[in-house]
């Protein structure tokens, strides 16, 4: 086999692997969420299906597949079908621009190294931001097309929330971009290689502690997770925007949510936690293990927060977003700009 074919096949394999990992990430997160919730509430969580309940996500999916598909009589047929598709497509597509490993030749198999990640885009940060912001359409359309008041309120809340938190999110991103001097996630990660004083990793987490906190909070709000899960506040809105959905169509919404969480964590890892850079493993071309570990830690944080912090009140959420988070993000941006000017001049 010549190099070009091999390279093509390996690229294809990387794309397939990324897709496979994302699907499994959503399944694993469902299980992790239920297990961790069980642990926090002093019960077992799912433990019957498979060893330690490991096959529970599979059982969940099978159950949903065999359920009847319902559509309310007055629902808008096209948009009702389109909404979950938009949600899950945006979720998958956003990950395409996220690199998850260093360049590798697969132990000398290729003569020029190939980059781990679906696509290496030079404006990757913007691509991820643009496509994840498309996800809001899935939720809004689901809310509107169901022709149900609970769904509509869920959809409205979600769009207002996402627009509000996108600002703080983007401003936090901008500070990191200024530090790295590039919009490419790969260059941002590579700018974080090495150590200060020989032992502190050069992660942007240490230069941008406030930015990281803002990013994480806005990220939780963007993915509609507790304590900001207003679009699906059970006590007030039944299930919010997906109240009227059932079967596979319903399953696509949580799947999109879990994939969005994964993307958010992966981008946070690339931007703040040095991506695949870490001690020891990198020497053997296994930097991506660090990447997975870091993403896993952030995802655990997501679940941890969900089951410990109570939900905000809606007006408090808006106040917090506009009056605290956004000004803090702008201050962070200005401080970062001043820092760069002072030290680079």
């Amino acid at each position, binding site marked *: 086999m010549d190099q070009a074919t091999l390279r093509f096949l390996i690229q294809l394999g990387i794309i397939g692997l990324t897709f496979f990992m994302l699907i499994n990430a959503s399944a694993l997160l469902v299980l992790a969420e239920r297990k961790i919730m069980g642990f926090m509430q002093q019960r077992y969580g799912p433990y019957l299906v498979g060893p330690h309940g490991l096959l529970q996500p599979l059982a969940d999916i099978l159950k949903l597949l065999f359920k009847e598909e319902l559509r309310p009589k007055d629902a*808008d047929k*096209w*948009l009702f079908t*389109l909404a979950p598709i938009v949600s899950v497509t945006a979720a998958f597509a956003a990950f395409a621009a996220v690199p998850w490993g260093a360049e590798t030749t697969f132990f000398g198999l290729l003569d020029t190294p190939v980059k781990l990640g679906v696509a290496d*885009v*030079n*404006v990757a940060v*913007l*691509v991820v*931001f*643009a*496509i994840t*912001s*498309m996800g*809001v*359409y899935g939720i*809004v*359309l689901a*809310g*509107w*097309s169901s022709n149900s008041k609970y769904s*509509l309120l869920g*959809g*409205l809340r979600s*769009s*207002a929330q*996402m*627009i509000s938190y*996108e600002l703080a999110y983007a401003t936090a991103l901008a500070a990191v971009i200024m530090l790295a001097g590039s*919009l490419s996630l790969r260059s941002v990660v590579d700018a974080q290689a090495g150590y200060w004083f020989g032992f502190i990793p050069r992660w942007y987490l240490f230069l941008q502690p406030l930015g990281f906190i803002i990013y994480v909070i806005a990220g939780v709000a963007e993915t509609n997770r507790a304590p900001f899960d207003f679009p699906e506040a059970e006590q007030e809105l039944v299930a919010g925007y997906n109240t009227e959905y059932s079967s596979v169509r319903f399953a696509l919404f949580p799947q999109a949510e879990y994939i969005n969480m994964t993307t958010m964590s992966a981008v946070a890892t690339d931007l703040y936690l040095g991506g695949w850079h870490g001690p020891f493993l990198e020497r053997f071309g296994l930097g991506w293990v660090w990447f997975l570990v870091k993403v896993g830690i952030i995802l655990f944080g997501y679940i941890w927060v969900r089951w410990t912090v109570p939900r905000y009140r809606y007006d408090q959420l808006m106040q917090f977003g506009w009056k605290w988070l956004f000004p803090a993000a702008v201050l962070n941006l200005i401080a970062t700009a001043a820092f760069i000017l002072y030290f680079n001049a």
Partner: protein
Amino acid sequence: MPDAVLFYVFAAVAIGASLLVIGQRNPMYSIMLLIASFGALSALYIQLDAPFVAMAQIIVYAGAIMVLFLFVVMLLNAPQEDAAQWDRTHPLRRPGMGRFGAMLAALLIVQLVWALVRVNDAGTAVGARGDVADLSSVRSVGRVLFTDYMFAFEATSILILVAMVGAVVLAAREERR
């Protein structure tokens, strides 16, 4: 060759979706089709080696402005927009308005034809002036925006700020009543 095929696919999607936007009655569908059209346009920008413009197009138009449109349509809850039920005395239905619109359309066509003819005369596309590489670089876009077009840029920001303050004032006044 694949570039040309992709160009025609995206151009067809952009034009088809835009036609459908004005071609059907449900405003919700119009919004979704307009988003599809924006998406196809941004794909064309990517083909022109301007990924930054493409992403800005998606973030600003498809992401922010269309969400606003969607919001308005949802709040008005007006899925039907029937021209026959319109008020006959509506300012937009005056015959003079129709003529004015037709004149503008004719002007646009003349402009487009003129531009196309000129491109063919020169034998090169507009982008072939050599600054294509600059277009794709965020750095150069930023530099030009904050040097050559500083005044226009700042004036636009102030305009948007004024609009924002105006909206807040109007909304607050209503609340006090």
